[in-house]
């Protein structure tokens, strides 16, 4: 069975006054029917641009899009605008991060839901109105017949996000892209929304791409995870693989720098030094080398490719460290050793003297 969506070597660059921004730099992934892909990364890692490009929302004169986004036998990067209009909101729907600014304040919620339906199909006003109320009920909004005639400001943050989900589901999409769907919400509401997405997925059988910076959210929702850094996927694997045997130093950094409820309380946080690189003036070699505690001289020159961890495995990583060293470092980190104390594993491996880089901030 071929995947529902297949992204191949996608590159998106923006020409700006400051220079060429390499927002997405050669990424490939696919999503299968009924599965959830989690895309994890910090601000500026290109995770949102990827999904906006899938929907044809980054097309502009200063944008250059290369590669292919295959959907239903067609390449969405070159598809004509009227085809995109048919796909967008119909086959592929998107939920945005900020539910307040994604709803139109002047129109009733029901009207906005009806518009989403009437754009894509012949449906009478009455039937659309009925269905709008049904959708609100589906996403768990109490008293849907009354709510359908209210304005967005009459809804709380969590309820607005439910409206956004209802709107995305209006045309029973095959793929739902959720861009930080819970970032603006409180934890108890976040739990409600994630449970709702899970429930809807099992009932409607759609595929979901969930984009987030929260490792907890992906751990609980995704089947597969892609970790993005500076416009590239640097690690990709099943959720179990990425959480239990992470391979990339950046993934280690993310996992060790967040306080977690399931570890010992006073365990020291190990922050990633420095900050994400500029997408205009990118570092040489491995993009992560200025922040990597295990950097070797060669890493500043050689650009790693995303390759399988072991032959035939789905777990992929873009890292120049030898796999044996990586697993020894992760084992060390997991038992609480500091990155500095594990550096010798790298230097022992090869006698090439590597000067530790002075990070911007050592905290």
């Amino acid at each position, binding site marked *: 069975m071929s995947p529902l969506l297949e992204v191949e070597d996608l590159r998106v660059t923006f020409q700006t006054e400051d220079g060429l921004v390499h927002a997405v730099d050669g990424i490939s992934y696919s999503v299968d029917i009924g599965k959830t892909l989690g895309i994890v990364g910090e601000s500026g890692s290109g995770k949102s641009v990827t999904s906006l490009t899938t929907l044809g929302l980054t097309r502009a004169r200063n944008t250059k899009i290369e590669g292919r986004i295959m959907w239903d036998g067609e390449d969405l990067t070159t598809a004509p605008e009227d085809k995109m209009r048919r796909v967008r909101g119909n086959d592929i729907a998107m939920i945005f991060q900020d539910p307040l600014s994604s709803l139109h304040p002047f129109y009733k919620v029901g009207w906005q839901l009806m518009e989403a339906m009437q754009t894509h199909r012949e449906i009478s006003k009455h039937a659309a109105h009925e269905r709008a109320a049904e959708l609100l009920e589906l996403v768990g909004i109490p008293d849907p017949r009354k709510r359908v005639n209210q304005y967005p400001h009459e809804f709380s943050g969590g309820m607005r996000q439910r409206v956004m989900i209802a709107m995305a589901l209006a045309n029973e999409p095959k793929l739902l892209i959720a861009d930080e769907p819970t970032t603006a919400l409180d934890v*108890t509401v976040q739990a*409600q929304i994630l449970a709702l997405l899970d429930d809807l997925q099992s009932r409607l059988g759609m595929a979901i791409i969930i984009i987030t910076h*929260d490792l907890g*959210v992906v751990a*609980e929702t995704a089947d597969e995870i892609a970790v993005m850094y500076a416009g590239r996927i640097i690690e990709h694997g099943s*959720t179990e693989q990425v*959480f239990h045997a992470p391979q990339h130093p950046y993934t280690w950094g*993310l996992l060790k720098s*967040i306080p977690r409820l399931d570890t010992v309380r006073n365990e020291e946080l190990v922050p990633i030094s420095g900050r994400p690189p500029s997408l205009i003036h990118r570092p040489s070699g491995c993009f992560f080398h200025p922040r990597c505690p295990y950097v070797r001289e060669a890493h500043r020159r050689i650009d790693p490719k995303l390759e399988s961890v072991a032959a035939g495995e789905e777990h992929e990583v873009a890292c120049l460290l030898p796999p044996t060293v990586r697993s020894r470092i992760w084992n060390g980190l997991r038992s609480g050793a500091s990155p500095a104390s594990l550096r010798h594993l790298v230097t022992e491996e090869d006698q090439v003297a590597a000067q530790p880089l002075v990070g911007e901030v050592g905290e």
Partner: protein
Amino acid sequence: MTATNNSIIEVRDLTKHFPITQGILFQRQIGAVKAVDGISFDVKAGETLGLVGETGCGKSTTARLLCRLMDPTSGAVLFEGEGIARRKGASLKALHRELQIIFQDPFSSLNPRKTVGSIIAEPFAIHGMYKGEGDRKKHVQDLMDRVGLNPEHYNRYPHEFSGGQRQRIGVARAIALEPRVLIADEPVSALDVSIQAQVLNLLKRLQREMGLTLIFISHDLSVVRHMCDRVAVMYLGKIVELAPSEALYHFPRHPYSGALLSAVPVADPTGGKRRRTILTGDVPSPANPPVACRFHTRCPKAKEPCWTEEPLLEDKGSGSLAACHFPLTEEEVALQLPAALTQAHASPSA
């Protein structure tokens, strides 16, 4: 942790109501948003007290009341046994030397027209310290070095710094006067994940070095657990549970604390499975909170007398204070919390 029993701050029945008015010329009050509604707690010298809760529970208002950026409607805040409500002039200034605050948003809490040097020197100017040009600059650069900023960036403007660095500027400004109490209002929630740890570690280090008392406000329960010795859980302007960190996270007594903990996603695909308590509905409006126990509208355990009688914040054993008629039992907690949380408690090598 709680080395001494001296309370540096005592909060007694603190209340802040914001009036809701109607009419333009002759405004009359038609109601009040009860942001903080009768809370009492002590902060011990040298400890870190966490305030957690969801949007609108009154945690930021509490922070502002504590350092008198706002005046309370009623109740008192005592700093070292003395009320702060009537202070003004020199005595208020003296209070602010001891008690400083770091704000949530590092983008709007720094004046964009001032250089970093003059932002950090502002407290010195206000308090007339280090009057000599060179002297002041030296102290500012010491501070910058201390919070991990490059002292050579003295003459740069806030926009030239990243979010994490700006938060460091905020920290440098707050510790300039060597205060004894530092209030951090959501200090890391605007920062990227890889940067959060840098600022949290910085706060912990400064606390160690300066013997600071820290009041740490956050909606992120994992961060609060990492930082705090004791935690107060707030809901709609009330404290519903006040407990030592370990006790709260392993055996929450109030159903709301239990639901909050149960809702936190755990970054472990196998260890996180549990029967979630998912609260239905939203937080009610603080302008019109439910009567008696404010949580009864969303509480899975609510029954008579939850809607007739307000529960008091009382000792429920193991050092936890909770305001609940029917506190959670061990079986209930075991069901709804991630297994990993109780395991982490048992085996420190997790």
